[in-house]
């Protein structure tokens, strides 16, 4: 029984709930941007342009948990499928194809256990999947 519905996979059908991974990962904090930028028309009307993006922010990951995520993105970026929370309502999830970007630096907080990582993974170019 999982609590949240965050999923990741290399195919849409093959996504796995983060809590169902071999080393279960609890739900991340997830700021979600429905568009990349906004443009204000000369009349004052504003519209959003560009792809949605989101971040998965993990406050502390074990090396095993981190390696599970790293397996989906062995280079700087990779195309993956995710199920993540959107802004539309409190418990609204949606499936996306996304570019998963591995962070340039991985932070270790000395106030916590030395083998725990703070990790922020950015997902860009989100394309809604039906």
């Amino acid at each position, binding site marked *: 029984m999982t609590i949240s519905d965050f999923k990741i996979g290399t195919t849409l059908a093959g996504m796995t709930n983060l809590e169902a991974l071999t080393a279960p990962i609890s739900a991340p904090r997830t700021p979600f941007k429905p568009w*990349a930028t906004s*443009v204000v028309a*000369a*009349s004052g009307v504003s519209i959003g*342009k560009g792809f949605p993006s989101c971040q998965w922010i993990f406050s502390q990951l074990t090396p095993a948990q981190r390696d599970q995520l790293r397996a989906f993105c062995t280079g700087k970026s990779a195309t993956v499928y995710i199920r993540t929370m959107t802004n539309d309502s409190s418990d609204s999830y949606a499936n996306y194809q996304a570019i998963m970007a591995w962070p340039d630096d991985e932070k270790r907080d000395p106030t916590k256990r030395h083998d725990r990582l703070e990790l922020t993974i950015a997902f*860009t170019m989100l394309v809604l999947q039906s």
Partner: protein
Amino acid sequence: MTTTIQTTPQKAKVYAIFDNPPVVFACRINQVFSGTDRIASFVFDSVTTGAYSDCLPGMTVLFGTAPGANDAGISYCRKTPTSVRFFCGESSDVAFADNLYVTALQDWGVWTETMTVTDAQVEYMKYDVAYTDQHLHLLPVPVIGPDRVVRYNGSPVSVSFDGSGSWAFDSTIASHAWSCAGATITGGSTATPTLSFSATGRYLVKYTVTSAAGAVSSTYRTVHVWAPGSGPAVYDVLLGTMTGDFNNGGWDYTITVSSNAAADIRVRSKIILFSEEWYGNDLISYGPCVGAENVVAIGWVGNEKIVVDVNQGLVTFEAHGPHYWLQQEHNFIPVGLVLVSGTPASWMEMATLNTDRALWHYLMWRSTLSNCVDIHLTGNTDSCIQFSAQANSLWDQLKELSFNYILALPCTDRYGRLFVQIDPVLVPVASRSGIPVTASIGHDDCESMSIDRLEVPATSQILLSGVVSTGTYASPSDKALFSLAPGHIPGHYGSPTNVDKLVLVSQAQANELAGNVLEKARLPYRFNFSNLLYNNRLVDICPRQFVYATIASPDSVRGISYVGNAVVKTIEMVIDQGAWKINWKGEPETKANLYTTGDTPVVTGLDGNGDFTTTNFIFPKMPPMPGFGGGGIIPSPPPPAPVIITPSACDDSLAVNTSLIWDKTTLTGVAGDNTTTAWNRCVVRNGSYLDIAVVYQTGVTPTFHCYAIDRSGNNLVPGSISVTDYGYFGARTEAFLHITFAPVSNTAADGFEFGIDVGTYIFNEGIPQTNPVTPSVGGPDPFNTNLTYSVTNNDLADGIYSFHASGSYDCEYVYNGAWTLIRAEMSHIIPTTGQFWLHVTGTIIDIDHGGRGGNPSFQIDGHGGFPNPTTVPLSSNTTNEIDFLWPCNLPGQAAENCGDVQFTISSYGGHEEIWSLEFTLYWSDAVPMQPNVTLSPADLYNVCPAT
């Protein structure tokens, strides 16, 4: 909810395919060359790939020292090889050598095709194609749209083509035939087939169109069926700003890819940019070409724009549309066509001749363009007896053939399709309803709107002329037309512009066209629509179209409002944060307002008060004749009717050195460069030469330039021009020109039109001078001048000659009674009799009069028949408006003593500023005004008269 072009949010990804055509034939050269000049074929052996019959005309061919290499050069297949001989495009630019590797690719590019002319004056197109009936049964032009890119998702995907836009002169399209190896084709013999693909890959589509007259043409496109990791390599690219600029002729852009792609890319590699776009959550693209909406742009890798950045492992390419490559390809001359009656008998003849047909000949027989892109011409059918273009690039020749005759210009769109069209604002207003409005733009549609008000060069008047041509080259029957805008009197500011030698339809059309040209020239406004809210790739710089612009007066602090059509001239596109960022720059639609027929005008007197009778003013009724470089003719006498050159009528039995009197002694001014021109026609033979005397004002240095055009309209450079200056006789200098015709190699007589330009100054810039009285205190005056002149109307055919002076000079310190003047001479005008007037208007500001010796003054003086100097007193330390008319009677004056005018501003110390002084000469019909350069009657040796 229906997805529209305004559905948000909008997203876009752009990918690139670098077309990697397969090798269809590979062999080695089996021939020893004595040189590499003008090689058009070679013997081959050692075939390693394909069969010689797989090589098709226009295919790209690489020459290298290794298989597939191009280090020795690149050319194209001229025609299908035989079993032992390969036919390449004639070239002197390939390092041909025995055993060189030859690689023919399944690729078609833009090349010029050479023509050859034998010693017997027989022309061949594409090096060795003799004329049979190609100008009787004209090749149809295939039109099928651009290359296609489709994504394969595991089940068959379909691609539709549409060849219904194909066209043929004097015929209809009788049949369509499509072929594509690897595809299932439905409707393969119709104009609109559907091709189905069951696997990823690069597919070649061949389309063959046959006219009812039996002429056949083919064109080729590629279909790229791709899937991630399968099929043609699809690259993620960094797209620099794509810019489409109408004035530059098309689209250019840069793309950056990772370095591992560099090895696959060579010069002239075709790049297809395509996109995946979302409107809301719907994956869909909107574009102007049905079936290719996702194709963003097609271009070819530039020659010398490859930058390899080793540190970051990136390669940046500059890619260009066909316009760029057409600009790079220098074409061969002669480029000329003449209208004949009956059946055309050579490559230079056509039975129906207009701009489109001239362009057709040029594009279909002198280039390979139609192999790879669509060609759309103007639709103009106005007849002309001859078309010609100078030696230049393919693109410049296209412009010359289209703009010089009907004011059309070529342009290529993002897909590379060529459109030759007349600017929308030069189209008659009543005919503009057919021009589509492809978008609307207002303050809800873009991030910002701005209006630039440009300080455009002021155009005071458009003098538009041309002919309605109804005859043939051998028997012309032209009606000359002349139109003026805004009217007979130029505007107060700016310079007149001649638009001449046009092919026209009627006086009314010419008049409105003059008005349209004037409005376009005077248009000061440019619109900028920045960062469109909606991804709109439907709008392009061509084909011609309007966008409907709405600018409300409250939106600008200047209160400018505009509601109407605009013409987009520049488009910038870039991918910014996953969405298109698009800027448009354009001009509002203009419409002809003021124009008139260029006949005798209504003149109410120079000051508008009827001070002068109008009956003695005459203006020319005949415009310059087209196509032969002749400018307008001085009012009297009227220009002679065209002389038909018929060499066969030349009496070869005439004794050598039989002379022909040169009967053209009048010259006309050419706007802007102060040159004069005269033309004559004659029949010359080998060894002909011309002696002609030119008389001009002493003290100037004329330039001489001689032209010869044969009866096919080809420019020929005379063999030599030698000038012997026989010195001056008083105020006049006489030079003697001896001109030979060495290029005329055949001994038989041939027809030529021959002209001479004499460049000289009609207006001589003033020279500041001081009073010869030597100041007794303080030494010579350190005056400082900054006086500039511009000729605003030197077309003597108008009966008006005017120039403009502005600037300032200082006279800081002058001793008692001394004065400073600025002298300007209006020289080289010969009013031999009668009367003319000099009208001077403007402003002279006395900035700081020194207070010595009285007030400053403005004095006008002249030689010969001018009356005594006329002096206008000026007030000190204020602005003085000058407006006076100075009549001049010239009875019995010798030519060299007349016409010079000088003006003097006397300032007894101080600072004078001349602001906008306008001098205008008017003369009556009793005064056959001529530039003070005359050509003597000349002897043409070894010629016989044209008949």
